[in-house]
């Protein structure tokens, strides 16, 4: 595990000397800054931090963090990250990816990395568009959306990243708007603390090719009414006036107003992110109103590398082989004189 450190870093320690080249106004700047602020608070040594990315706008991220990093190839960041973590489980490994990178070309690696549950952190920059190739629809683009590759409207129904992730048995899933830096910093710290694969979906506005795609949820004027920020152990309450809430009605979530029809705060669902059964988390990620943000699921169990290490320790305790020569000269050998 990462050793606790005495040296105190500031965000500058994690800023590389490279000029940041995203479009002006891109949410990526917010995410980068939030990360550079979060890293010094994580208690990990700078040299133990590794950022791995695939291809796409978001995947330039590792160049801007002054730690170890690799800008990989399209869709493969999950597999590269897995190799890094398996080779050295003491590292803090961050995978940076986008909706095209992880949900299209890298879809296979994405579901399997979630299934295996290595102690990795994944940040999925979802902007519902291909940015770097200049504006084609992605697997999260909406039906009917007009893009460079769907001039008459997109006819491919989208993935919902949270639904897909939970289907692949993600142990940690959080969602956040790209314009909430404070919460983001905190969330990154929480993700690092979590033992297992943490997936954070950031609703990241692309100012050039899909500007305003999340405004209906993320705009400051409507944010509190359109989003519910979930916290473990707290009632599901939202709204500018804190007067709205969520209850369970049969097999469906229902939005209620506190004070109407005799509803009180005690009637609201209490968020249990740590519950093993993910049925409620599935319902929450699918809600269109309000949009569930914050840590939706956070269920810890043994990590893949832990299970591997346990087995290795067991085998090493009983094995008669410690050097390769023990193996080579064991069993059925014979002498030629």
């Amino acid at each position, binding site marked *: 595990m990462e050793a606790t450190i005495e040296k105190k870093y500031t965000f500058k320690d994690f800023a590389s000397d490279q000029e940041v080249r995203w479009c002006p106004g891109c949410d990526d700047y917010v995410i980068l800054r939030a990360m550079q602020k979060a890293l010094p608070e994580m208690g990990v040594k700078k040299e133990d931090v590794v950022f791995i990315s695939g291809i796409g706008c978001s995947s330039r991220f590792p160049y801007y963090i*002054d*730690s170890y990093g690799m800008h*990989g190839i399209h869709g*493969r960041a999950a597999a590269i990250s897995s*190799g890094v973590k*398996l080779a050295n489980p003491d590292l803090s490994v961050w995978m940076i990816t986008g909706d095209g990178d992880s949900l299209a070309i890298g879809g296979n690696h994405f579901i399997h990395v979630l299934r295996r549950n290595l102690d990795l952190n994944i940040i999925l920059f979802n902007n519902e568009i291909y940015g770097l190739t200049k504006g084609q629809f992605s697997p999260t683009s909406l039906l009917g959306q007009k893009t460079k590759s769907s001039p008459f409207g997109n006819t491919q129904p989208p993935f919902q990243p949270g639904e897909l992730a939970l289907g692949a048995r993600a142990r940690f899933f959080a969602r956040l708007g790209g314009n909430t830096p404070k919460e983001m910093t905190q969330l990154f710290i929480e993700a690092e603390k979590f033992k297992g694969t943490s997936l954070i979906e950031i609703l990241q506005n692309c100012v050039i090719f899909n500007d305003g795609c999340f405004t209906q949820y993320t705009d400051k004027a409507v944010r509190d009414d359109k989003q519910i920020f979930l916290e473990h152990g707290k009632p599901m309450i939202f709204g500018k006036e804190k007067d709205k809430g969520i209850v369970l009605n049969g097999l469906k979530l229902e939005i209620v107003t506190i004070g109407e029809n005799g509803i009180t705060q005690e009637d609201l669902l209490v968020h249990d992110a740590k519950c093993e059964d993910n049925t409620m988390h599935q319902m929450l990620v699918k809600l269109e109103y309000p949009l569930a943000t914050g840590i939706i699921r956070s269920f810890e169990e043994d990590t893949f590398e832990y299970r591997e290490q346990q087995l290795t320790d067991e085998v090493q305790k009983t094995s008669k*082989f410690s050097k390769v020569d023990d*193996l080579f000269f064991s069993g*059925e050998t014979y002498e030629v004189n």
Partner: protein
Amino acid sequence: MKSIGTEDLNSVVIRFVGDSGDGMQLTGTQFTDTSAMFGNDIATFPNYPSEIRAPQGSLYGVSGFQVHIGSVEISTPGDDLDLLVAMNPAGLKTNLSAVKAGHTIIVDTDSFTKKNLQKAEYQTNPLEDGSLDNFRVIEVSMTSLTKEALKDLGLDNKSVVRSKNMFALGMVYWMYDRDMDHTLNFFEQKFKYKPIIAEGNAKVLKAGFFFAETLELIPNSYTVAPSKMPKGTYRIVNGNTNTAWGFLAAAEKSGLELFLGSYPITPATDILHELVKHKHFGVKAFQAEDEIAGVTSTIGASFAGDLAITTTSGPGLALKGEAIGLAMMTELPVVIVNVQRGGPSTGLPTKTEQSDLLQAMYGRNGESPVIVIAASTPANCFDYAFMASKLALEHMTPVILLTDGYIANGSEPWKIKSINDMPEIKTRLVDGNSESTHPYDRDNETLSRNWAIPGTPGLEHRVGGLEKDKVTGNVSYVPDNHEYMTKIRQEKVERVANYIPDLKSDFVDEGDLLVIGWGGTYGSLHSTVGKLNHQGYKVGHAHFNYINPMPKNTAEVFSKFKKVIVCELNTGQLAFVLKGKYQEIDFMQYNQVSGLPFSVTKMVAKFKDILKEE
């Protein structure tokens, strides 16, 4: 007609054939191991269908195991058979043409039923219609005799019938004067917890042995004496196991942990099977979700400081192409093993071919040179797996190691190498006290970059697939820099020629014909050229293990011969490379793409013709 050379008298080729569920591979392996312990030199060739249990009795479901034992040096599993053991009509039909005229065929007559004859597409019973008159056929009702031997043991019928292969093995042991102890011990170990099965198999083996002995059906005239092999401790290995062990040795020698990222594919999977066993050495064998994850997890592990390898076969290498380019661009040490099989596409998964050479050399986008080397025998898979690791680590580049289904599944005696016999591996790892602070600082001699791994304070850096500045490693689109980096990556691989052995010509180093090969055809070419020299021809054999780069003296070796012929199990891939590199030489070609290894007999005849031509 019967002009058999001395060498032939000292060696025997035996093939066991039957249904894919008949246990022919086990029978062959047991005979191999026993003969090796007896002191014979050996080469084997398992040949089986890709279906796990093909329909019983069908022609395409025949599984075979060929073994060549000798009191002289054996370098191939042999061409023609001295003895064929056929457990059913389909096995007889598909293998008869390989039996030498006048030689022996043992058949299980119980399996020559009307139904089985039909399945094997026989119009009449070959045991009755005179079609086997040119052979010495030994008819044994093996299934009935097996049942009789086991009647008091209380085994179920399926287990009884399944052990008839041991009856055949027992007979062959008696014929070749082999001891049964090895196999009897094997039963005890293998069926430790099922003693009744162990007892049953032992009974049947002995029944076969005593059957052959008591009824004196077979003259005991085939003794093959122990061969004169160099002194030492040996074991029988197949190429895949020895490839895995070469990596184990390289990890220990370099002081690194071994990481394998792999996805199952025939015929490479046995390397994964072997390495997953070795957690005691700290081996991290990761079965990935696909071929691409196999290689990219390997790249991640290499970035983090492991000796990282991935294993695959032809179609998998195609899938890994882009990622190998990333490893080349980031200049990370990874080894990619391609156990070649018949192609293209899915091709012939269980058969052998050498048709991935050009893919290994050029199968990536952009200017993307990597080291390409090839093992040439089951035993030296160990050495080339070790060398692939050494070259990758010392030169900071991907290395593609080519083997093939023939040497991967074939086995032979291996004079065991201790870790102390292996050369040093000096990794390019640097620590925070190093003078170098830039990731692309290079060694002046090898041009290989330093290896600063995560966890090393002060050397934090980023790598990636985008072109990098020659000093800082930052992304660079500068035209001159790209040209410089392209050339330096090329030259880095070319300079590996300074660190590999010279090419040599076996038998003679000048003469009338030079036979050129690479990889797994070593045995057949060596036998062929040996026979020609024995008959007074001046023929050399030059075999490539290092293909990119090639040994520095290559042109010189070629120039000493009047004719040169490049022999490959493809349509001319090495020939294509050589023709581009050595344009002054007129290369002839000898090619075969049948999914089978070369036939020594055919090559000897062909090369004699060439030698006669002016």
